[in-house]
């Protein structure tokens, strides 16, 4: 923990010590196309993206996630300190557990493993109708299936009419359409809500 705080203090000082509001190409060296790895370039149309993996975590060994995709291929995913991990909110790699679903983007290594730049654990994107609202839950209809959405204090945000996100959820209405980004609770019909987009 103190290591994280120390690193945060250092990074704070680097950005707050400057007044830079943009970084031009010259301050970070050349931006020749070949200088910046672009993992998107080697994807053929119609072929599976080698730099993307989806599936369920079936095993964890150190910094390596074993992921079984929906087409039953098994992928190994490396996580490093530079990998961003989302699970309802930005978190650390130890939040990923066996049974979780994930999407991972990164760079395919010669040995076939994926060095992940970012993983999103249990993330879901649902188009729903709100059928009822309770003290800390929202019941939703997703094409006839019931979904229970849990409101997480301090995390759940609402975006009304494409305006900046707010923590005030009191404009959500029963019977209205909404889009929900959330974290699925594996093997249930429940999600923790990260952001709900609605009209108000």
């Amino acid at each position, binding site marked *: 923990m103190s290591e994280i705080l120390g690193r945060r203090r250092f990074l704070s000082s*680097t950005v707050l010590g400057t007044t830079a509001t943009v970084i031009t190409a010259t301050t970070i060296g050349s931006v020749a196309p070949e200088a910046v790895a672009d993992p998107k370039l080697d994807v053929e149309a119609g072929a599976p993206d080698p730099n993307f993996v989806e599936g369920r975590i079936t095993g964890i060994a150190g910094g390596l996630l074993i992921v079984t995709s929906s087409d039953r291929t098994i992928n190994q995913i490396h996580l490093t300190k530079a990998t961003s991990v989302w699970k309802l909110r*930005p978190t650390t790699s130890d939040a990923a557990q066996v049974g979780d679903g994930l999407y991972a983007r990164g760079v395919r290594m010669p040995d076939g493993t994926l060095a992940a730049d970012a993983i999103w654990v249990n993330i879901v994107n649902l188009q729903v109708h709100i059928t009822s*609202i309770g003290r*800390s839950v929202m019941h939703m209809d997703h094409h006839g299936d019931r979904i229970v959405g849990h409101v997480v204090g301090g995390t759940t*945000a609402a975006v009304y009419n494409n305006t900046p996100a707010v923590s005030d959820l009191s404009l959500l*209405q029963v019977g209205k359409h909404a889009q929900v980004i959330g974290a699925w609770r594996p093997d249930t019909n429940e999600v923790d809500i990260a952001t709900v987009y609605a009209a108000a």
Partner: protein
Amino acid sequence: MMAMDWLAGAQQVVVGGVLIWASGFKLVHRNASAAARRSVLARLVGKDRVVGAYRAVGVVEAVVGLLLLAPPALAVEAYAAAALFAGMLGYLAYGKWKAPDSSCGCLGDKHTPVRGRGFARAGLLLVLSLAATTGSWLDRPFATVGVVVVEAAVIVALSPELDHRWLLPLRRWRIRRSHPLAQHTVEVPLESTVQQLWKSAAYRSVVEQLASDLLDHWDEGKWRLLTYSARTPDGPATAVFAVPRLAYEPDEVRVAMVAEKADMLV
């Protein structure tokens, strides 16, 4: 006149009424053919014949319903209705088993997959049909009203097609009086800060080099700091953004690129 008789008469009204309502929807509603194609029946008889089959079911329902409501009250009418609802239960079971995403198509054009409430409604109507074999509602029209109202209310409650008519308005009214989610503390959500970051020139100047999603975030006075890992021509780095936390001023967003090597020194 026995109490059982007028109770039975009440069942004729309820069952007959539900059948007329169901057939009315199938025969005259302008969305009926669309509802037919979405229903379990489409799976059962095929897409080409489903509209005809749907209308045929409507005709049978109309005939049985009218016979039940019209005198004389014959036991055979009630048995015909019971047979219809027994078939209905079989239809629902088939739908649940073979086409769980298809609509029931029973009483309205709302898409309502087969669920427990559908089975409960068909089962209840089957029981009511069997109870309707004696007597006639015409003998005691007023005494039946109370029973009919209660039973009709139960059937409406078991009809997901009708939720938008009473259940949702009721819930809307309740949250208008006091919204259950209104008391959560007001703070600036992370999502809002990220949205502000995306609008900033600082973000746009380095976005092509960002490799990860949001890595870490913390608050520092009036700033919220966000970090991303980045791939620069000089090697891996961490992009650090300082975003105004309590104001929407994307022009004020600051950025620093910290090379991974510099990181090592800490």
